């Protein structure tokens, strides 16, 4: 089964897309095969999404038992690479 990164945000669409594209590009550079998808943290059904790892930029209302990585670095644009490494850590476990 393909790895799936779900970026769950309460931000504007533009900022969600930025985080998704950054993670996609980073995984590609590191030759990690993963689907990266942006969702609204307030509306998403995480059970149906079945993510390998969740990147959270917003309030933590997540009920599923999946690893959650704090993604505020993608809005501050500071320390994004470190967060990507954490995500990859879960993808390669």
């Amino acid at each position, binding site marked *: 089964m393909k790895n799936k990164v779900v970026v769950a945000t309460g931000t*504007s669409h533009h900022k969600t897309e930025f985080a998704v594209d950054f993670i996609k590009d980073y995984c590609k550079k590191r030759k990690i095969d993963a689907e990266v998808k942006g969702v609204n943290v*307030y509306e998403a059904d995480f059970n149906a999404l079945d993510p390998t790892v969740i990147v959270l930029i*917003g*309030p933590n209302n997540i009920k599923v038992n999946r690893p959650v990585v704090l993604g*505020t670095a993608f809005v*501050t*644009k*500071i320390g994004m690479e470190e967060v990507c490494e954490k995500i990859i850590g879960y993808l390669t476990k």
Partner: protein
Amino acid sequence: MYFLQAVKAGVNWILDLGAATMLPIIMIIFGLILGQGFKKSFKSGITIGIGFVGLNLVIGLLSESVGEAAQALIKSLGINLNIIDVGWPVGAAITFATPLAAILIPIIFIFNMILLYFNFTKTMDVDIWNYWHLIFPGAMVYYATNNNMILAIIATLINTVVIFKLADWTAPVVENYFGLPGISLPHGETVNFAPIMYTLNKIEDKIPFFNKIVINEKTINEKMGIFGEPLTIGLVLGILLGALGRYSLAKTLTLGVQMAAVMVLMPKMVGLLMEGLMPISEGARNFISKKFPGREVYIGLDAAVVIGNPSNMAVALLMVPITIILSVILPYNKMLPFADLAVLPFTVIWAVAATKGNVFRGLINSIITMCGVFYIATDLGALTTTLGHAVNFAFPKGATMISGIDMSCHVTLWILLKLISSKTFIIGLIALIIYAGMWIWTRNDIKKQYKQYSEN
């Protein structure tokens, strides 16, 4: 001596080139100073110039369509809304086009470093694009005082300190309610309303029955979502204006499409300006993270990071028609709301956050906010228009004044402008005392709410 004169002449020559040519040159220099390299700096500088040219093209369309429609409205209904809400993209472009911007960008950045160094603020504003919100009050003061540069810089720094302190004060809300730890929102146009909104919430807490009403936001978003989209707002408002101005059906439909085009195209042009500023922001971020390693600071960001909150969106959607109705029924109002109807989710952030997402109270608070916005827009319309003309954002002859919901309508700016004139000083002083009083009265409310939040 000759050298200084030559430098002065050179600086004046660059400033006289106009924003579309001047800013690329200045931004290339900034980029190089911040170590972004020539290729990156050159590309970003020219992108800013392209953004300005594109924005001017869209403003031409806005002037033709909305300007004429507002005149028709005056003729047919006698509603004299002669200040057009041209929207924040124009506000940002005007601000960056003033001679002050080039000076104030580095001044605000250095000032922020000094405040951080002395622990006067925890907010580290790395969002260079949104410096326009901090520079705008200075630009207004500059043109209100016959180009008094020193006073404009002082006013900018005073406003900046207030906005940073407001951002520090509200940061726990950003962490606990919006779920973004380590972030604050020094976004002048939004956070300036926070003391007023917390005061309203405190009063509402004391009103029997009223304090028990809680409304859920889900249905509102599901049923009204499409009406909050810029495309729909432009189309519906254009058709409405055309019909009320007694245009023919063909002209009404054309106006609808033209206004939808303005709403969609304007932010895209501004997107180019923002893209051009990215390398400068990156340079500033790198600089700050090297200079303040390991310090507990809030990264100051655009309020766009929190607008997705469902209660916030619900209130903003409901406020679109309410704002239009308010513009007509509010006595003495002169502003016709238009372009910034799309950014109501920003305007209402603190109206909703102060109530921890109660849509009912959020709506009441937002209506009160908008009343204030309309009166400030009416009061400052002439000065805002002077600012627009000064940087050559020309509007059609005999046409309207300009302002915007997210542009020159915030309380701290209004108080500053009243305080610098001897004629209005007393009004400014009274307003300052009331505003400061509200902030002092509610200063512990966020901490209390945070405590309740963690217990729930």
